[in-house]
């Protein structure tokens, strides 16, 4: 059977530089619970990719296991996606990036995936400075297995069943800062205005970019006693730095008073403009960033925004001195020493 597909026409839909609409960056229908914070994050990723006008096929989406990891199926359907095993997305990412450095990698993980089973892999992804955007959708709870605490649950936090968490939380922002990440941000799934520019900045950053997104679980962690509920998070947000993303090919028109803003050039030539709300905050000072996050944590405040953007560090590929051409497309002739090379090798074993 043959048929002619109807051309997609969305009257009045805004188009980006590639002529694509926002809908072209969407994916499959979400199967998460209605109102899930993760769906808002998905929408923010869609918006960011649309605004950056990324050709969909130049994106690769990677995830582990869990509610958050399912979401890679819900955005940019024109990109290859890989929903791997629990806590091991960073390893898949390292291999995939090793093979093809030209794609943009978006990893989506959760607090169980990243901070319990996958803590080691997250740490080593930071250490290797693999070039990817790592979205950690953080709700302090295991959703798919129905409500166990995760390693990011705060002390004293209560589960839906009323159990109290007594263990110290692991804060991915502090972890990434201490391991040397060069782009560390935190946001809130309900704050699209803050989240979209951060995602765009993270995608433009060369090297490992972590965005920890507080993303309340409406089913298992949105009750009184939870420190990751909508109500609690909204009351305890502290925004040090708001981010506006400006692409290099556009004129920077943001008009901020001297002393209120700082412009940071991203590695692809784009600029990110940081609006300082707390004037004493310095987002390019790692030690200060660590102290700032910890001071606010003591007051039960989540610092959100771009917490740290570092000076340039060589990424994974630069450290390995690989060619600009992706390794998966280096011609075979350049890879095989041939019979002549083999004779030379064998001479050393006589």
């Amino acid at each position, binding site marked *: 059977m*043959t048929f002619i597909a109807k051309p997609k026409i969305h009257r009045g839909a805004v188009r980006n530089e590639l002529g694509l609409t926002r809908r072209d960056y969407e994916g*499959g229908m979400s199967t998460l619970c209605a109102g899930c914070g993760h769906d808002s994050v998905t929408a923010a990723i869609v918006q960011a990719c649309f605004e950056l006008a990324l050709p*969909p*096929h*130049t994106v*690769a989406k*990677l995830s582990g296991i869990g509610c958050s990891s399912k979401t*890679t*199926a819900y955005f940019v*359907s*024109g*990109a*290859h*996606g*890989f*929903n*791997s*095993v629990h806590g*091991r997305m*960073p*390893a*898949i*990412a*390292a*291999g*995939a*990036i*090793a*093979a*093809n450095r*030209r*794609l943009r990698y978006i990893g989506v993980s959760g607090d169980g995936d990243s901070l319990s089973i996958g803590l*080691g*892999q997250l*740490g*080593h992804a930071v250490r*290797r400075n693999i070039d990817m955007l790592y979205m950690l959708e953080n709700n302090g709870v295991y959703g798919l297995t129905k409500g166990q605490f995760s390693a990011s649950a705060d002390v004293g936090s209560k589960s839906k069943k009323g159990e109290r968490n007594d263990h110290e939380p692991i804060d991915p922002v502090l972890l990434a800062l201490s391991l040397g990440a060069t782009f560390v941000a935190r946001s809130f799934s309900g704050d699209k205005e803050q989240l979209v520019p951060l995602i765009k900045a993270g995608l433009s950053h060369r090297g490992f970019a972590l965005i920890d997104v507080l993303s309340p679980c409406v089913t298992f962690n949105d009750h009184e006693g939870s420190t990751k509920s909508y109500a609690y998070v909204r009351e305890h947000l502290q925004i040090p730095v708001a981010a506006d993303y400006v692409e290099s090919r556009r004129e920077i028109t943001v008009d901020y008073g001297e002393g209120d803003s700082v412009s940071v050039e991203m590695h692809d030539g784009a600029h990110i403009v940081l609006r300082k709300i707390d004037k004493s905050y310095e987002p390019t000072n790692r030690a200060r960033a660590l102290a700032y996050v910890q001071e606010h944590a003591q007051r039960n405040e989540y610092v959100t925004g771009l917490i740290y953007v570092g000076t340039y560090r060589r990424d994974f*590929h630069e450290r*390995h*001195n*690989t*060619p*600009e051409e992706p*390794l*998966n*497309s*280096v011609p*075979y002739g*350049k*890879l*095989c*020493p*041939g*019979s002549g*090379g*083999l004779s030379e*090798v*064998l001479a050393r*074993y*006589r």
Partner: protein
Amino acid sequence: MPDPERAQARVNDFTVKFANVNGTGSASANALIMKSIFRMGVPVVGKNFFPSNIQGLPTWYEIRVTAEGWRARSGRVDIMVAMNPETYARDLRDLAPGGWLVYDSTWPRPALLSRPDITLIGVPLAQLCQEHFEGARARILMKNIMYAGVLAALLDLDLEVMRGLVAESYAKKPALVEANMKAITLGYDYARANFACPLPAHVERLDCTRGHVMIEGNTAAALGCVFAGATVGAWYPITPSTSLMDAFKAFCTRYRVDPETGRNNYLIVQAEDELAAIGAVIGASWNGARAFTPTSGPGISLMNEFIGLAYYAEIPAVLFDVQRVGPSTGMPTRTQQCDLMACAYASHGDTRHVLLFPADPEECFHFAVEAFDLAERLQTPVFVLLDLDIGMNDWMIPDLQWDDAYQPDRGKVLTAEQLEGMEKFHRYLDPDGDGIPWRTLPGVGSKGAYFTRGSGHNKLGSYTEDSAEYQEVMERLVAKFRTAAAMVPAAVSDGTGKAKLGIVSIGSCDGAVREALDALRRGGVAIDYLRVRGFPFGAEVEAFLAAHETVFVVEQNRDAQLKSLLVLETPVEKRKLHSILHYSGLPLTAQYVVDGVTAAISRGQAA
């Protein structure tokens, strides 16, 4: 096979064993002796028995000199070079009647006199070193190299050949060449002056090693990875696989740095653990690079979850399992073939994997290349099962050959142009009827985009929890496995094929089995031989099992894993199969196989 009784006039047919303390430089002295014999045209077998330790524990090295070119241990010791006081007693015991014991006579060793049936050769090595060399370190190192000189006199080795080897080893440090040669000459002269040289067991020049090299299986496998065009290697260090990645790196440094740009056409990830190592391999392979990981049994255990994902999501991956003694840490520096079952059915759920079983470094090289072709053609993990004996010992093999017409088989990967011509791409269809679907690589274009998942998926690649859709994909994977059976290296056989008795064996058992066959046949036993080289088993394996009344399955593990696979995966009657199991951690000997077969015959289990 040599006469097991007495060590006597054995020209080019004897075994020298060196008992050393590890970390004292004995390895270079032993390698020098072996290489010298090899360069004199006489075939040698070298086996290293070493502790899981860096310095101070007993270590042994065996050199079998074998004009007939046998490839296994002989299982006997004709000359013992006993340099480790801690193991004197057992080293003395291991020596065959009529043998010779070389020791350092600087200090009296009355215990050595307890055997009247051997000849003692005492050389005051420490004393000579004390007199001729300065400094503690030099004295220890030179003591070892000095016994190489003693052996040169006893075995009639060519000093010029030795000098050539020493000069090659220290090409950048000429002063060391002279120091080493001085020690060799001191030992040589002392032995000539004090003993009847050469011994009845000695070396005479032959021309049997031309066109051969001495190489480790791990090195050859690494070379295969380079020639196959592998660009991504991910690993976690584990004995005895480590030297595979070390060799890959060394070859890449030489052959993979772009001469124009200075960039590396390879990337090695030293992962945080084996879970990450296999993850990186799968990520890279998913993305179109040829990627591999070398590991050993414990690493395979850790990789199991990812292996299941790669099987079900149909992603190529190449794993080298250099097997060592298990379970757990086991004896990590000893050899075994103990991961056959663990690899054949690795992971949770219904999984079956493609395995290749090289018998020597030559097959390590070729099977490494073949593993990448099979992994990409079949879109599945492929395991190459070496063992410590193949991987870490130097084997004499014919020069490796390479066909410059070779092109990698990248399998069924759709190009952007092919996708343009298609109405729609679906990941898990079977359009060719061989059970192998077509795949696309990330970046090829949105039309080729699909979502890879380990969750239930249907033939279109969509998520499913529908029973029929799930089973349809699982059935196709069975069809793919059947296709694989005809693609893996076929078993090789030896004999008339008409005997009632047969031996089926695998991997590094080959040398011992072939030598045993020779002895058995000379003793009047009609017996055929089949060596399996791949899993799933091909039709030739079933045919061999069907054609023989009694089949001995020779393998190096306790639980008869090869036999289990044969029973599970072929229609063979279990009662036909008799196991000959060797799992001491030392490489198999021909005598062990001969004893196993003859015992069964005398028990009436085999005619």
